[in-house]
């Protein structure tokens, strides 16, 4: 599969690239890169409301991305955003501000990415709502505590799959429990959609946010899937461009479909690129890759432990192939830099999840995250890279 990805023909520090920073962003296959170049080289135009050929092609391609999203994830509404973060902020403004009032409760978890914490803290300040964080205890969300936190909750925001630990939360159960108290549910699916195919209607969430760049698509584009009911409760967020029906000096009316939430010239080339990525990934058996990668990751994690590392990921069935670990004495940055010197890309730091770091009792971890194109050889190079680091740092 690596042959589909031009980046793997490059060397890093004189060594073949072993890319294990997939939870941060994934690499792009040629078809995605070409789709965007082709768009710019042959169909570039602004979309909507135009009658010339290029504009027609641009509109068709951009809207095809939306159609693919709706089909793949079985959703009636797919708003295109610049990514997961903007999608969650959109919910906080377009839904939260108009459906939550002082004292209302929003339930979050200690495992959330900053992008699913900060927008709610900001809303809490604007609207005086209460935030409750479900604790992460002994390697999992405390569902008993969740049940208690749910009391009076209007919205539950939960990360489907953790970007730090790879843990896949029991979202089906969480959604079912939330529904019993009538709370809406937002899934942060940034790390989920790269690894599994989610049926949005079936899973029963009200909002699902994710980014193209974590599933072989381009930067600068993502989506928010919305249930019918939630969609009907939302008011426009940003104003301008194609989101209006009529504008007068006295006031404006807005479009009734998803365009209502897409202000300004949309991410047109990005839509072409993401559409290509969605078509590419549709041909992939995600489940078997998922199992293959999880097996690799488990094996690597065992080896890391044998070599004296502390491993924070438990890599249970369903979890993503993400290994967070630390060495007892070597600084994560030194470690990562010595791996980079060998062509191996891993990430270090708090992974935009400082509350979870605090819970783990560390300021950061080294994270190796695997994706479709990673193979046994990558794992082998990674492990011998680790050995060389350990030797050098003795």
């Amino acid at each position, binding site marked *: 599969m690596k042959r589909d990805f031009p980046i793997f023909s490059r060397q890093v520090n004189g060594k073949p690239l072993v890319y294990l920073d997939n939870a941060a962003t994934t690499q792009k296959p040629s078809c995605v890169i070409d789709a965007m170049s082709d768009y710019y080289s042959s169909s570039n135009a602004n979309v*909507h409301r135009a*009658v*010339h050929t290029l*504009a*027609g092609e641009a*509109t068709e391609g951009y809207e095809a991305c939306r159609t693919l999203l709706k089909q793949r994830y079985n959703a009636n509404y797919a708003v295109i955003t610049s990514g997961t973060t903007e999608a969650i902020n959109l919910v906080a403004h377009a839904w939260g501000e108009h459906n939550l009032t002082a004292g209302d409760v929003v339930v979050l978890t200690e495992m959330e990415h900053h992008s699913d914490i900060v927008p709610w803290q900001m809303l809490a300040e604007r609207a005086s709502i209460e935030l409750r964080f479900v604790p992460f205890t002994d390697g999992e969300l405390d569902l008993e505590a969740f049940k208690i936190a749910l009391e009076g909750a209007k919205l539950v925001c939960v990360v489907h799959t953790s970007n730090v630990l790879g843990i896949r939360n029991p979202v089906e159960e969480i959604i079912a429990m939330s529904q019993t108290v009538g709370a809406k549910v937002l899934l942060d699916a940034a790390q989920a959609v790269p690894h599994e195919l989610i049926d949005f209607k079936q899973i029963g969430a009200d909002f699902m946010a994710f980014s193209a760049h974590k599933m072989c698509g381009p930067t600068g584009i993502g989506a928010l899937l919305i249930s019918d009911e939630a969609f009907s409760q939302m008011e426009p967020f940003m104003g301008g461009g194609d989101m209006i029906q009529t504008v007068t000096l006295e006031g404006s009316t807005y479009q009734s479909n998803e365009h209502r939430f897409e202000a300004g010239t949309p991410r047109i080339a990005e839509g072409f690129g993401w559409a290509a990525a969605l078509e590419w990934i549709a041909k992939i058996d995600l489940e078997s890759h998922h199992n293959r990668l999880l097996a690799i990751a488990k094996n690597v994690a065992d080896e890391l432990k044998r070599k004296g590392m502390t491993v924070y990921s438990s890599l249970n069935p369903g979890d993503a192939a993400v290994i967070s670990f630390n060495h007892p004495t070597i600084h994560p940055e030194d470690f990562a830099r010595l791996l980079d010197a060998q062509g191996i890309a891993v990430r270090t730091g708090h992974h935009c999840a400082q509350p979870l770091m605090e819970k783990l009792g560390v300021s950061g971890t080294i994270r190796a995250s695997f994706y479709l194109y990673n193979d046994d050889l990558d794992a082998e190079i990674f492990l011998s890279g680790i050995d060389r680091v350990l030797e050098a740092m003795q």
Partner: protein
Amino acid sequence: MTWPKPIQDIIDEFQEIDEQFERLEILMDFAKEVDELPVEDWNEQNLVKGCQSIAHIEVNIRDDLVWMRAAADAKMVQGLQGILSIAVNGSPPKQVMELTPQFAEEAGILNSLTPSRSNGFRTMFDMVQNSVKEAIK
């Protein structure tokens, strides 16, 4: 697929032409086939929604046959309405319900128009069928 004669004639007429400009001229020629819906009969219900230009379509069943009246400010939209009129006017409802907008594709009318407009045709086509469905219910 075999089409009723008047539709097949339209398909043939378009297929003969290579140049886009001429296709559009032919399309506009069909505007005169429209039985015009006078302005005073325009209303919310017969407004074609999602169209960039103003367009109205009204469908009636007379003597068990379908008759449509229409109006549009853009001549090409009127042309599409003319083609629709040829396709449905004087036909029994059942036959209209069996039609698909595919004939426009086959004629190359849809290809010759940008998506938003071809959606306009589809919208108008659906509107006619829906009105017929309503009327015969």
